């Protein structure tokens, strides 16, 4: 079974410029692996700068390069943090982050599994994200977080990508296995205009 939400481009062709990083499920704890998220995100961001060269220290090109680098570092890190938190580690399927470069956009695709008990909750959040005004939802979420001490996922990462980085986001949920236990994979696609 396959379900699609938001701006998920099913027919996106593979770019000639891409970089994929895969993470195999490991026995190390989430905490031990946490720094890999930032390292990988910074590496992807640095890689991208090659394709936005700056000649003669032109200040426009410099600030554009810095902006793109910053956006990739932030978005890739948020996507990796989410994927590591929500991945269904009972499956042995790897997590991957795939950066595709096009002439007018950068697309970041992250693939991870999700526990069957989390699927519905996540889809409900996505529906909310697609239906409501993301600016209002952002403020509402922060005001709500301020009244509680719990550390549940607030969706702020996705909201900042939409509000502050003008990113378009889409999701594909697919069932990869039903027996002996159900395994669902979620592919998150973030498109960033450049």
């Amino acid at each position, binding site marked *: 079974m396959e379900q699609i939400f938001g701006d998920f481009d099913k027919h996106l062709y593979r770019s000639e410029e891409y970089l994929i990083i895969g993470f195999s499920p490991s026995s190390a704890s989430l905490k031990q692996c946490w720094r890999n998220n930032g390292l990988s995100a910074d590496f992807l961001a640095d890689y991208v700068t090659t394709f936005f060269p700056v000649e003669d220290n032109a200040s426009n090109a410099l600030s554009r390069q810095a902006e793109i*680098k910053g956006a990739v570092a932030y978005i890739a890190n948020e996507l990796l943090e989410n994927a590591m938190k929500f991945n269904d580690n009972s499956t042995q399927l790897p997590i991957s982050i795939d950066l595709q470069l096009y002439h007018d956009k950068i697309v970041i695709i992250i693939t991870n599994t999700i526990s069957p008990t989390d699927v519905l909750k996540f889809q409900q959040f996505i529906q909310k994200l697609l239906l409501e005004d993301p600016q209002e939802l952002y403020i509402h979420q922060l005001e709500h977080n301020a009244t509680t001490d719990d550390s549940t996922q*607030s969706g*702020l990462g996705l909201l900042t990508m939409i509000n502050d980085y003008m990113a378009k986001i889409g999701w594909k949920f697919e069932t990869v296995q039903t027996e002996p236990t159900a395994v669902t994979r979620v592919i998150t696609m973030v498109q960033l205009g450049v």
Partner: protein
Amino acid sequence: MEIKTDTYTVRYDEENNVILCEGTLRLSGMEEYSPVVEMLNTVVERSPPLITLDLRKLEFLNSSGINVLSKFIIKVRQHRERQAKENQPETNMVVYGSQTIPWQSKSIKNLQRLMPSLELEWDKN
């Protein structure tokens, strides 16, 4: 008061009521951020006339960190509301940011939306 690791520093200068954040703050969720949250709460409890939050050297902040700073701003706002009710002078707040650090030029403005009286000072270099 200071929290210092290989990647970040959060320092509270008690004399001047300046909170300085430097480096990369990408901790995993609220539990890991709790020492920072405790420090920020202490600042609000002291009820100074002016709180300065200096982010100019904070290169990276993840969304959990944005959540922490936002909660802090809301706490200051609520504190001001209490002060106003009790006819006490209200605590003011100023945030120093850098426009050359991408996450700041994108996301810092949201802090002001949570507390419109918050002053935002941009460092352009």
